[in-house]
């Protein structure tokens, strides 16, 4: 028997800290990451030949970003690092990987998933026009490639990323046409007690808002999206929103970044057959795990970072360490119980702050009921909101997977990662039942497109 094999998927803040903890225990983990370089999304590293300073890229989080990157670089010789590698399936205690057309199947004694998050999206008229990006996508364009998504950009949605990305664009010299938040300002007051659990993070957020206002960019809260205008050939020409007083306001723009906070990337946990439970506050199904990150699953599975629950990058570092300690402990190795207690407390604090964020920047689920029938819901398969409603009327489908089988919603190459939550809301609103009853789209391999040429070279 060799040493137990720990596999970590994802090399963002959670994955790096988990790997560090496993290495510190004397093991050599396998770290699998889709990215070219470690760092994840929020601390995404620029390509090797780019030379922008940390302060420009990560602002107030530059020290943390650097620490995560340096932490990973120090691990390089102590881990089996597989960059640009996709885990496309998990079965019978093995992860199945694809890197280009090379494939592998790796057995694990403990699997720590640090899969991160992507934007939570609510459709609107015109969101399928060229020039519409997710908030995260807009940030990647800037952070990785130093480009803006347009020459005049509207930021629309809600959540901390809305303000962060808009202010990063402003700082980089891009022209920001408006920052439009669907959440009402009063929601932040209600959320204040929870948000005060991390005063420094709250302060950073307030400073971002000020910075946006200081340069004269219109910043509106409590808006309702009406339409992204433009045409399929030339793309976006503007964004119209309804203000809280009922009037419409149009902003000319050639690009829109949209997103309503984040959603965890849970497909791998799903393929590893983790249980899921409905979370009332954020209105989504989330993988079931204990406070240390131990998942309810048939093999030793641990979840950390935003891939388990969106608690932010700082929490990801702590939950990555904690999940690794839980895995080591379950493998029968000695762990520092005191450290685990401290980490649990820390993650708990971030949990409270995240509750505050969810209250301050709520997922605007009520928009689903108001969407026009001709609005595209599933962009991969070009399924409209009306298609789903008609499918329900004709077939009696009253659950997401059944609606998918009959209408193709969520059946395309993104596998419902971007439309699944909105589809559930459309189904629940049209069927007039709680969104929990609309269920969740079951994960199906491959998590992302898999080349038919896979394994060809062997």
């Amino acid at each position, binding site marked *: 028997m060799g040493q137990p094999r720990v596999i970590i998927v994802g090399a963002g803040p959670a994955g790096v800290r988990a790997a560090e903890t496993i290495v510190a225990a004397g093991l050599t983990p396998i770290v699998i990451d889709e990215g070219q370089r470690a760092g994840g999304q929020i601390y995404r590293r620029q390509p090797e030949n780019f030379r922008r300073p940390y302060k420009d890229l990560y602002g107030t989080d530059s020290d943390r970003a650097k620490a995560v990157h340096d932490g990973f670089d120090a691990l390089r010789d102590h881990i089996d690092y597989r960059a640009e590698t996709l885990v*496309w*399936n998990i*079965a019978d205690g*093995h992860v*199945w990987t694809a890197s280009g057309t090379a*494939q592998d*199947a790796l057995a694990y004694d403990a699997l720590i998933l640090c899969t991160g998050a992507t934007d939570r999206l609510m459709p609107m008229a015109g969101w399928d026009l060229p020039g519409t990006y997710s908030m995260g996508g807009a940030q990647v364009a800037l952070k990785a490639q130093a480009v803006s998504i347009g020459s005049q950009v509207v930021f629309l949605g809600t959540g901390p990323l809305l303000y962060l990305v808009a202010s990063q664009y402003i700082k980089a010299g891009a022209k920001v046409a408006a920052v439009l938040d669907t959440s009402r300002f009063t929601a932040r007051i209600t959320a204040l007690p929870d948000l005060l659990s991390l005063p420094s993070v709250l302060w950073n957020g307030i400073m971002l808002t000020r910075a946006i206002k200081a340069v004269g960019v219109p910043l509106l809260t409590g808006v309702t999206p009406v339409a992204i205008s433009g045409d399929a050939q030339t793309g976006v020409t503007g964004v119209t929103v309804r203000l809280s007083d009922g009037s419409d306001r149009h902003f000319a723009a050639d690009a829109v970044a949209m997103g309503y906070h984040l959603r965890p990337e849970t497909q791998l946990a799903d393929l590893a057959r983790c249980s899921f439970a409905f979370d009332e506050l954020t209105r989504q199904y989330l993988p079931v795990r204990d406070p240390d990150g131990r998942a309810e699953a048939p093999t030793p599975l641990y979840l950390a970072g935003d891939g388990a629950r969106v608690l932010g990058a700082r929490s990801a570092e702590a939950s990555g360490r904690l999940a690794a300690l839980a895995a080591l402990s379950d493998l029968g190795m000695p762990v520092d119980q005191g450290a685990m207690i401290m980490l649990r407390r820390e993650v708990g604090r971030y949990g409270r702050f995240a509750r505050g964020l969810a209250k301050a920047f709520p997922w605007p689920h009520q928009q689903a009921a108001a969407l026009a029938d001709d609005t595209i819901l599933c962009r991969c398969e070009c399924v409209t909101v009306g298609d789903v409603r008609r499918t329900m009327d*004709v*077939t*009696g489908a009253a659950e997401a997977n*059944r609606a998918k*089988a*009959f209408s193709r919603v969520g*059946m*395309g*190459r993104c*596998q419902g990662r971007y439309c699944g939550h909105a589809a559930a809301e459309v189904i629940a609103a049209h069927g007039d039942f709680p969104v929990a009853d609309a269920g969740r789209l079951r994960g*199906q*391999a*491959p998590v992302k*497109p*898999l*080349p*038919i*040429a*896979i*394994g*060809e070279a062997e």
Partner: protein
Amino acid sequence: MMANPVTHSDVLIIGGGLMGSSAAFFLRQTHGLSVTLIESDLVGRQASGTNFGNVRRQGRPIHQLHLANRSLEIWRKANELLGADVEYLQSGHIRVCYRERPENIAKMEEYAADARQNGLDLEILTGNALRDRFPFFGTDVLAGSYSALDGHANPRLAAPAFARAAQKLGAQVFENTRIGHVTKVGTDFIATAKDGRVFKAPVLLITAGAWAGELSAQFGEPVKLTARSPTMSVTEPVPYAIAPAVGVMTPLEVETVYFRQVARGNIVLGGSCRGPAVAESYRSFVKPQNTLTQLQQLRRLAPALARLNIIRVWTGIEGYMDDSLPVMGPSATTSGLFYAFGFSGSGFQIGPGVGQTMAELIATGATGIDLSPYRVERVKAAG
């Protein structure tokens, strides 16, 4: 305490796959009998909804072609019959053999001669004639047998469309209804759901696929059914270019890959391997290695497809008989009891014909289709 609700009808059908749904439809539409259709999960969600969608006659046993022809007539008018689009595309079907087994050409020709006597016209193509018409085949492909009047349809839509059409005609459909105990008392069959609901009818048709064995056993006819799960994949959409459904004629299961392109552009793949399944769990999973093996076989059959990606895999639960033939016809022990199950991964094309045939047999006492190869006694005798 309230008594459990009791539902009465002329015919009770247990199993809401394609067989049960189409039988329910024809019992109403053609014969005017009252029908109750019971499905333990959701209509058409297992074998009927997750299969490849081949509307393929060629390759079936010659004795089955009469039934397959009957079924084809239904597929051709399915949309108007059901008032719903089941995406039936009569785009042809080609079955090819590989160079390393040239003896298959003679077998193809022999099969084609027999098939012609039974209403299925096949054209054998080799060399340039094959490649000019179907340039996507790899160099290992030696010959093909082409059926112009076969094609494919969407399995996710077909069985539910039959069930809805039956419902519109007055059939009662109960989903999420698991039958535990079933017996015959006097002239009535009494099926009791696990939640206590009771269903009564003088005729019982069991179309419960991989789940049928526990029901037939309650009438002294235990049948060995093996649950297996097919390996299915689909590519991203690409411009529509491949009309026929394609399959391989081979004695090796691993070589039996097949594909078809739907009008939207995605290419659906199946075959090569089947995974194990547990019927009681109602959920099965594709083995990753089976996906890789299937893709490897596909590259051999049609190398150009290697440039595409698959975006999803899926499977369901199918019931296999040891001899790959279904059990279809009356019970040997119990009058009024009928079976249609165990289609062994080959039931989709004949499904509507099976429904029509069973409806005819139940309503009139006879059918023009020869059901002797499918008698339940053959299984009992063998067991």
